[in-house]
């Protein structure tokens, strides 16, 4: 089976969804990335990536509650699948392997 490697944005989204937990929809995922990575993300880009990840089987989605703050619009809750977890681990292994033994990065803290 070929290795499934994620792009940096896909990896961030999957990790953010895992950190958020049960209520992983667009807003908390985007906020988690903003808080931890210090990077403002477009909600449209988050949804585009999540839909791509869903097509590849890395996440599954279900409709959540519709609240007044949302103008009566339903939330779309995402959950990372076992295949998504596998892809995260494979990407991590690939990145760590690339990291290892790079002389310019030795003895430095990011």
């Amino acid at each position: 089976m070929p290795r499934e490697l994620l792009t940096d944005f896909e990896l961030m989204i999957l990790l953010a969804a895992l950190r958020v937990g049960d209520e992983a929809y667009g807003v908390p995922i985007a906020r988690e990335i903003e808080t931890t990575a210090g990077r403002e993300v477009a909600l449209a880009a988050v949804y585009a990536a999540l839909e791509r990840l869903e097509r590849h089987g890395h996440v599954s989605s279900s409709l959540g509650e519709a609240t007044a703050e949302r103008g009566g619009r339903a939330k779309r809750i995402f959950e990372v699948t076992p295949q998504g977890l596998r892809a995260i681990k494979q990407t991590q292994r690939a990145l760590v392997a690339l990291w290892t033994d790079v002389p310019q990065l030795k003895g430095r803290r990011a």
Partner: protein
Amino acid sequence: MNRSQPSSLVLALLRFVESENEALAGDLAEEWRAGRPRTWLWRQLVQAVFTTAWRKRTSEDAVLRLAPAVSFDRPERTFNLIDPATMNLRGFRVRGVGGGGLLGIVMLITVVLPQAWFVVAAGIGGGAVIGIAMIFRRHARGLAGPDDSAPLSLFGAHDAKVSASVHTRRSHMARFATV
């Protein structure tokens, strides 16, 4: 929360986004009510509108790709659909003039680079001058159109030969489809 209501343009754009992705529109509304600044909303909205427009366009393309398979009873109608020279999905009578695309560019410039207001102003002024000049030219020469049957007549006399050859090509394709 005591916030001013978003403008009617924002609401219209939100409805456009909602037509393709209800959850995204809901997220934008939720964040706005949570106190996000107006500039944030506009940045997000512009990107959401472009994404939605792209998705709508690609889904229309998918329908057109299926057209030959679904219209065996009226093949000429099928080839009218898939012939790129006759497609006009912009809701504007003159082919080649994309009002939605131009509006998008103007919005993008206004939001991303407000200092470049003179580009927008020059575009509006130039467009008005060209439009008025064309109206006078059409009145002077008595040209027909413009519409989908004679798209070139906006800039010159309608060429009956070109139109006839297009129709002949379409009927050939329709006959081929019935074989």
